[in-house]
C-alpha cells in the first residue's frame, strides 16, 4: 500500500510554500505564469500539472516550454512586454520591502538619490502591477521586509493604484499566506503554515495585520507531494531555500 498518510504528515515547510504558490494560479486559465525564484517556479509548474493545465511557462529566457520541455513558443523579452501590456499574465515577484497596502520595493533602500543599499532597480515591477495580476513571494518573513512604508514604490500597492488593471493578489511567505481582501485593501492574514502561530506572523510584521479568520495553510495532496519530490525537484533544492 502506498504510504499516503505518512507522506502527508511529513510535508516540509518548503512543500507547503510551493503548494501555496500553486494555489495562486487557481482559475488563471490560459495565461503566462511568470514566477521569479525557485519556490514560485515549483508552484507554477505544480499548478500546471494539476489544477491549471493551460498555463504557459517559459524557461526564464526566450522559450515557452511544455511540461515535457518541448518548445511550444518564442517569448523573448520584447514579447514579454507585449504580454504585460496585453494583460494575460500573473507574475510572482520577490520583494526587498512590502508594506500594508502591497507596495513593493526592489529598487533601493534609503534615499533613492544616495541609497544605503542599491538593489536591482525598478525592473518590470511598475508595469507588472499596472497591467495584470501580481503576487509576491517572501522566503524570510521578517519586520525588515514587512515595513510600515517602503523606501521606493517599485510595485504599486492599493493606496497608489491608478488605472483599470491593478490587481495585487496574494503574498506567500515561509510563514503564511496573506491577501488584501479587506474594505481598505490593507494586508490580511489568510492562513498560517502548519506549525506557525498567528502571533509569530504578527511579531514578524511591522504593521498591524487583520487576523480575524485565519486558517491553516492546506497540506499538499499525495499527488502534489509525489510530483514535487520525484518530478519537479528530486534534488530537494526547495528545502534548502526554505528550511523546515
Amino acid at each position, binding site marked *: 500500500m502506498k504510504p499516503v498518510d505518512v507522506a502527508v504528515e511529513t510535508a516540509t515547510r518548503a512543500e507547503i510554500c510551493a503548494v501555496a504558490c500553486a494555489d495562486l494560479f487557481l482559475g488563471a486559465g490560459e495565461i503566462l505564469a511568470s514566477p521569479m525564484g525557485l519556490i514560485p517556479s515549483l508552484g507554477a509548474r505544480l499548478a500546471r500539472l494539476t489544477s491549471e493545465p493551460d498555463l504557459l511557462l517559459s524557461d526564464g529566457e526566450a522559450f515557452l516550454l511544455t511540461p515535457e520541455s518541448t518548445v511550444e513558443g518564442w517569448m523573448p523579452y520584447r514579447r514579454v512586454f507585449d504580454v504585460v501590456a496585453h494583460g494575460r499574465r500573473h507574475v510572482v515577484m520577490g520583494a526587498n520591502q512590502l508594506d500594508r497596502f502591497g507596495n513593493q520595493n526592489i529598487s533601493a533602500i534609503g534615499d533613492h538619490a544616495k541609497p544605503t543599499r542599491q538593489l*536591482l532597480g525598478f525592473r518590470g515591477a511598475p508595469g507588472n502591477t499596472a497591467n495584470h495580476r501580481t503576487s509576491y513571494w517572501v522566503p524570510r518573513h521578517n519586520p525588515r521586509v514587512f515595513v510600515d512604508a517602503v523606501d521606493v514604490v517599485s510595485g504599486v500597492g492599493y493606496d497608489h493604484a491608478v488605472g483599470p488593471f491593478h490587481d495585487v493578489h496574494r503574498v506567500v511567505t515561509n510563514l503564511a499566506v496573506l491577501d488584501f481582501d479587506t474594505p481598505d485593501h490593507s494586508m490580511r492574514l489568510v492562513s498560517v503554515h502548519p506549525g506557525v502561530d498567528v502571533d509569530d506572523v504578527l511579531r514578524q510584521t511591522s504593521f498591524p495585520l487583520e487576523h480575524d479568520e485565519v486558517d491553516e495553510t492546506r497540506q499538499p495532496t499525495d499527488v502534489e507531494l509525489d510530483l514535487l519530490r520525484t518530478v519537479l525537484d528530486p534534488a530537494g533544492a526547495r528545502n534548502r531555500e526554505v528550511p523546515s
Partner: protein
Amino acid sequence: MRDKRMTPDEVVAELVDGMTVGIGGWGSRRKPMALVRAILRSPLRDLTVVSYGGPDVGLLCAAGKVRKLVYGFVSLDTIAYDPWFRRVREAGGPKVLELDEGMFQCGLRAAAHRLPFLPIRAGLGSDVLRLAPELRTVRSPYDGEELVAMPALRLDAALVHLNRADRHGNAQYLGPDPYFDDLFCLAATRRYVSCERIVETSDLTGSGPVQSLLLNRMMVDGVVETPNGAHFTSCVPDYGRDEPFQRLYAEAAGDPERWPGFVDRFLSGTEADYLEAVR
C-alpha cells in the same frame, strides 16, 4: 555598397565627451564589451549611458566615464547586483533616470519613430514618476484615461554586438533573443555594431533564417569584427557567459583593494592583451 569596417578604437574616436550612448544587450547577455573596453582605454568622459544594465554599466562606472545613467535595472544575471554600480550609487553619484523596463523600451521606440513621447500604462502610481518629475502623464482624448507620456530616449550613439554581420552593416543574431539592439540603432544618430565574425552577405542566410537579420544597412554606420567581443557576457550560440570570470570581476569590483590588480591584469592593455589574459 559602402565598406563600413572599423576598429573599436576608431568607433570610440567618433564619440564625443558628453554624448548619450545607448548600449545594447541585456544584463550580462550579448553586451558589446569590446567596444566598452575601447571606451575604457579612451579619454572619453561625461557620458549619459542608456542600458538594460549589466557589467557594461559597472565597468564604465568604475572608470569614471558616466555622468548620468538611464536604466531599468543593473544586474549580472547569475550575480544579482553589479558591485561597481552599487558602489557608485551608494556614494551618491552619478545622476540617474531609473525606469520600468517596458517604459525603457517605449522610450527607445518613441525615438525610433521620431515621436516626442509614446503613451504607456507602466509607471502609473509608482515612484518612477515621483523620482523623475520631468516625466509627465497624458490623457486619452477618447476616454480620458491617464497614461504615462514616456519621452523619446534619443541617443547620440548606439553600441551593439551581434553574432554575424557583413561589411555593409547587415547584422544577425543567432541566439534565442534579439534583445532590443534594433531599437537602440533606430533611436541613435550614429550606430555601431560589433560582431563575432564578418562574413560575406551571401553567407548571412546560410547561418540562420532571414528573420535573424535584425539590422539592415540603413541602421548601421560602422561594423567592427571583435571575436569574443561580448566576453564575459553570453553570446549564444557562439559562447555562453564566462561565469568564473564574471565571479572574478564581481569579487574584484566589490573589494577596493583588489580592483587595481584586476585593472592591471585585464584592462590596461589592448583588446588582444585582454583576450590573451582571459584565455
